[in-house]
């Protein structure tokens, strides 16, 4: 069984069926490029993977664990969905950085909040242990616990900050750690957004047209960063209009038209010898529009 298995994802908005049964699989460390014309349902697919939308039908299995099954309505509690979301990261077309925080805080914020929740849980556990302990030992135990808790806290903080530093270096923005989003170019903002998504170590990182909101001269730096991630462990799904990029970086390409996968295969197969009529027409159009670099 593949690392990620998406089966028969269907999504309707009112009467508009946007995903008409999308299935695909992906191995760990692979990069999947998703291409297709506007309105085909690419964004909707990514949003379903990230639990921002709930598919009407279908299942999602990640690393052997069923994260989503439309036939089971039970596991829809907010906290359960939040846990599942953490398996996925999403980089938006519009970056969506938090404007009131520095670059560094943008990257560390979510991790710090998760760590805090973890710390609180630990504290509650300790309090229970303390309450159960014999009276004469409590004082000593309490002191011990306090020490351990302080250490946990310090470790959490150090860990998150070190990670953020290394991610900043990876996206080439170490010197911008104290800057606010409005002080950055679009390309820089998107690189920060990538670092922010990576900070939580998602199993799969999704990109929704990460360069579409950028001036042409800024797309290169962002694509370079994404390309750089490929060498490592990360499994990625990239929705893109940059055909040359898709071709060179992807292990697998799917072409989505009208909510269905019209074509899938290796970049060679899809780009060099497309079988489907729609794919051919689409590739021709994007070639003509200068989609190739």
């Amino acid at each position, binding site marked *: 069984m593949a690392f990620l298995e998406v089966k028969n994802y269907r999504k309707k908005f009112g009467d508009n069926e946007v995903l008409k049964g999308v299935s695909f699989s992906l191995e760990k460390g692979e990069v999947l490029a998703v291409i297709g014309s506007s309105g085909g349902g690419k964004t909707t697919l990514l949003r379903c993977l*990230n639990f*921002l939308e709930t598919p009407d039908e279908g299942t999602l299995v990640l690393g052997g664990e069923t994260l989503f099954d439309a036939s089971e309505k039970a596991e829809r509690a*907010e906290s359960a969905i939040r846990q599942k979301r953490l398996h996925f990261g999403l980089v938006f077309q*519009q970056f969506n950085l938090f404007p009131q*925080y520095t670059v560094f805080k943008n990257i560390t914020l*979510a991790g710090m*909040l998760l760590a805090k929740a973890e710390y609180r849980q630990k504290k509650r556990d300790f309090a229970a242990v303390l309450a159960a302990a014999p009276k004469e030992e409590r004082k000593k135990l309490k002191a011990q616990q306090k020490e351990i808790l302080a250490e946990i806290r310090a470790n959490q903080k150090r860990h998150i900050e070190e990670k953020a530093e290394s991610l900043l270096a990876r996206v080439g923005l170490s010197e911008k750690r104290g800057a606010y989003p*409005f002080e950055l170019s679009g390309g820089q903002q998107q690189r920060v957004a990538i670092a922010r998504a990576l900070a939580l170590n998602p199993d799969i990182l999704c990109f929704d047209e990460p360069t579409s909101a950028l001036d042409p001269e800024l797309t290169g730096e962002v694509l370079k960063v994404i390309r750089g991630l490929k060498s490592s462990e990360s499994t990625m799904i990239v929705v893109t209009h940059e055909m040359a990029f898709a071709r060179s970086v992807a292990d697998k390409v799917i072409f989505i038209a009208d909510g269905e996968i019209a074509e899938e295969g290796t970049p060679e197969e899809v780009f060099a010898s497309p079988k489907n009529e729609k794919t051919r027409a689409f590739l021709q159009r994007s070639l003509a529009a200068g989609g190739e670099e």
Partner: protein
Amino acid sequence: MFWEVFVALSEGFLVSCELFVLTLLFALPLGLVVAFGSMSKFKPLRAVVRTFVWIIRGTPLMLQVIVIFYGPGLFFGWRALERLIAVLIAFVINYACYFSEIYRGGIESISKGQYEAGQVLGMTKAQIFFRVILLQVVKRIVPPMSNEIITLVKDTSLARIISVVEVLFVAETYLLKGIIWPLFFTAVFYLAFVGVLTVLFHFIEKKLNYFRV
């Protein structure tokens, strides 16, 4: 003579200030509650809240003060509330409704992407609201809020219609005695107070200038 009038007016203005501070204290948070009500996904609640806001914003504050003060006695034969309390209730409700619309505008102006960015990072709804959305909303609503709050300073003068002894009421007692200047002198109090508020809001705006939304 001047000193005596000044002290009397000051005492009146202290009542105005009291009304101002207490109104803000209750109306600012209550407005947020009303704002959430008017944005609720639960349609009946939303309809009720929006209708209520329409009624409050659609009728004169003076009328509301009168209704709250005389209404319980007229309609139910209850004992009237203490004057200042009645005015305070009317003001709090009225201003909470105005504030709620400002809050709503502010909250709805924040892009969906901000919420979604928080969601995909595993934040809870509360964390997203308090850590991500709130400060952006505050930054956006400072100018309209300052307008509304400055209006409140002057609206406190409405309290005199049910004989709350605020600064204009005091001035009017002199007027009845044929002394006119205290009435005009009240402007000094209002101007000074609004001046301080203006500086304060300017300061807050500047403080929030370190980022852009």
